[in-house]
């Protein structure tokens, strides 16, 4: 393996055009946020039954994916896999960028975003949400230091320690994110410890899918060589993560199906929940899990960059659907306040909560993705995040052996 040379990507007109295009989405999201705050949340699809809507789907997805995007760096620094080392910097940058995008949505969807300073100065330490605020900010700081250790030659000796800290921090962070739902006793779909580890494994899959897409995109666009060796490692890993997510989803539902009091919510999500049932089976399971698994492991599509990219995109779409089912489906199922009774009231007790995403909510959610992409592109433009080549002979530690094997 040769010395890796990291270089900024080229600027110029195409770069600024791309940035302008992404910037348009950021501006539209700001406009949406202003519209929602000015009029009040009644102009959104949210109501007193579904209090967390589409913005939360995007925000939680991005926050979960952020910690997962750091995995590639962790594999390099913590588990000492040298093949991943050239990708570690991009991994750290994406982690910060995705988190920033998710948090931007979360803050702009608050009833009082102007009170952000209150959220950062008043803490109720029994609240997992308060802990998450600290974990988010801390994650950015820890990963920033980790990047510094990686990028400053004099500091390289601390890379492993910083990488290990960031790895532990990200595990705690995603445990916290999953526990936002896991700790809720009120609703049948939540109130379970499995959500914390499930969110961690979801983060592995979502983060890596985004990482692969960004890597493919930037290397193609900047005309830098990207070898099959590293890409195939990543796509095989993505396949493993998709399988692991499926395992957790299966365990979650099997447990609920065994427990009689949860039969109602399972019937709702798996059979007659309308849009939630469709999203679960068609988008999350079929398009978002089984199809990408087949694409990634099929002898021909598994070797095609186009198909690997499509499989990664499907994982992202499936992940958003999964978040939609967990967050909005979980709220739509009526609360079991009076078991054994049919409940009727003026406050939508006993009936499925109604929710239709509104345009401003969707635009705000997409704005979060735009923030993450803009931060990533600006990052790779101004700092040396990306190796000038990821060709097999440059980065694959086993390349000479393989080469010899092939020619023998």
């Amino acid at each position, binding site marked *: 393996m040769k010395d890796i040379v990291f270089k900024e990507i080229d600027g110029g007109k195409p770069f600024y055009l791309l940035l302008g295009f992404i910037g348009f989405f950021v501006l539209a999201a700001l406009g949406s946020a202003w519209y929602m*705050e000015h*009029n*009040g*949340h*009644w102009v959104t699809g*949210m*109501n*007193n*039954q579904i*209090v*967390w809507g589409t913005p939360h789907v995007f925000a939680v997805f991005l926050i979960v994916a952020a910690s997962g995007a750091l995995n590639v760096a962790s594999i390099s620094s913590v588990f000492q896999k040298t093949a991943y080392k050239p990708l570690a910097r991009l991994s750290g940058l994406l982690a910060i960028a995705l988190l920033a995008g998710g948090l931007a949505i979360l803050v702009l969807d*608050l*009833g*009082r*975003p102007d*009170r*952000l300073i*209150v*959220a950062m100065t*008043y*803490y*109720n330490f*029994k*609240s*997992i*949400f*308060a802990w998450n*605020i600290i974990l988010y900010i801390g994650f950015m700081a820890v990963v920033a230091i980790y990047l510094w250790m990686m990028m400053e030659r004099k500091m390289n000796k601390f890379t492993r320690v910083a990488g290990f800290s960031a790895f532990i921090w990200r595990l705690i962070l995603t445990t916290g994110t999953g526990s*936002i739902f896991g*700790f*809720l*006793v*009120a*609703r049948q779909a939540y109130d379970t410890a499995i959500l914390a580890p499930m969110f961690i494994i979801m983060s592995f899959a979502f983060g890596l899918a985004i990482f692969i897409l960004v890597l493919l995109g930037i290397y193609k666009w900047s005309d830098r060589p990207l070898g099959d060796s590293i890409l195939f490692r990543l796509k095989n890993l993505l396949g493993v993560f998709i399988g692991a997510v499926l395992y957790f989803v299966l365990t979650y539902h099997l447990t609920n199906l065994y427990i009689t009091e949860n039969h109602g919510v399972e019937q709702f999500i798996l059979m007659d929940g309308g849009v939630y049932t469709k999203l679960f089976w068609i988008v999350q399971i079929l398009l978002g899990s089984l199809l990408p698994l087949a694409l990634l492991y099929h002898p021909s599509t598994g070797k095609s960059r186009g198909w690997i990219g499509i499989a990664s995109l499907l994982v992202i779409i499936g992940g958003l659907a999964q978040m939609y089912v967990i967050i909005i489906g979980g*709220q739509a199922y009526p*609360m079991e*306040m*009076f078991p*054994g*009774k*049919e*409940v*009727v*009231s*003026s*406050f*939508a*007790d006993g009936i499925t909560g*109604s929710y239709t995403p509104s345009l401003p909510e969707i635009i705000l959610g997409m704005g979060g993705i735009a923030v993450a992409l803009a931060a990533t592109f600006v990052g790779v433009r101004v700092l040396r995040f990306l190796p000038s080549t990821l060709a097999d002979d440059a980065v694959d530690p086993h390349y000479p052996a393989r080469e010899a094997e092939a020619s023998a």
Partner: protein
Amino acid sequence: MSEESNIDIYRRRFMSGTATAAAGLAVAPGVMLTEVARAKPADQAVSSDIRWGMLIDTNKCNEGCNDCVTACNEEHNLEGFGRPATDAQWIRKVTLKDKQTGNIQTLPMLCQHCEHPPCVDVCPTGASFKREDGIVLVDKHICIGCRYCMMACPYKARSFVHEKLQDQMPYSPRGKGTVESCTFCVHRVDEDILPACVVACKEENHNAITFGDMNDPDSEISQQLKQHSSRQVRADLELNTGVRYRGI
């Protein structure tokens, strides 16, 4: 809440006779003024010696009656915008039909003022809080409108203010973008006056709601709770609610 003060209110209300709702409102401040003298001094902190609670007898709760809801809406000026999905409801009438037997009951649902409120646990800023006397409130000044308390409340007791409000009651501040719920009419209770819903129910002679200090063994609510079986909604959560129900 002493029985005497209740009688005092009834007498005054009775004397106002067939006065219109507007006239009734005009009388209310007068009632309050005379009661202030008997309330605890304003500078005295609330104490945990008192645990305010409510007992609702569903057998006495009339199916067609909505007076407690109307009284609450008037007291706190909760008049909505004709958008039921987003309008605030601090108290609501719920009708229950037993799936097995078909038996029908009706009861008011409101903030249950739990001893261990999940809304207070999850609130990131501490805006959701419980007073020493058991009343669960939202500090509208530090609520950031994250709505996590609404996710956490097992009773769906909270509402998010979805739009700009006008003509608010000075004793019951509300704000767009914050979360709110039943205050147990804390502004009245602190002045030794019964909550608006309780008074409305008594005025109709339904007497389905008893309000008082659950820590005082001699209070009417304690006596009734001792004599009759009652239950908490979602007792399995062990939240020790301040609102109890008979007949469910």
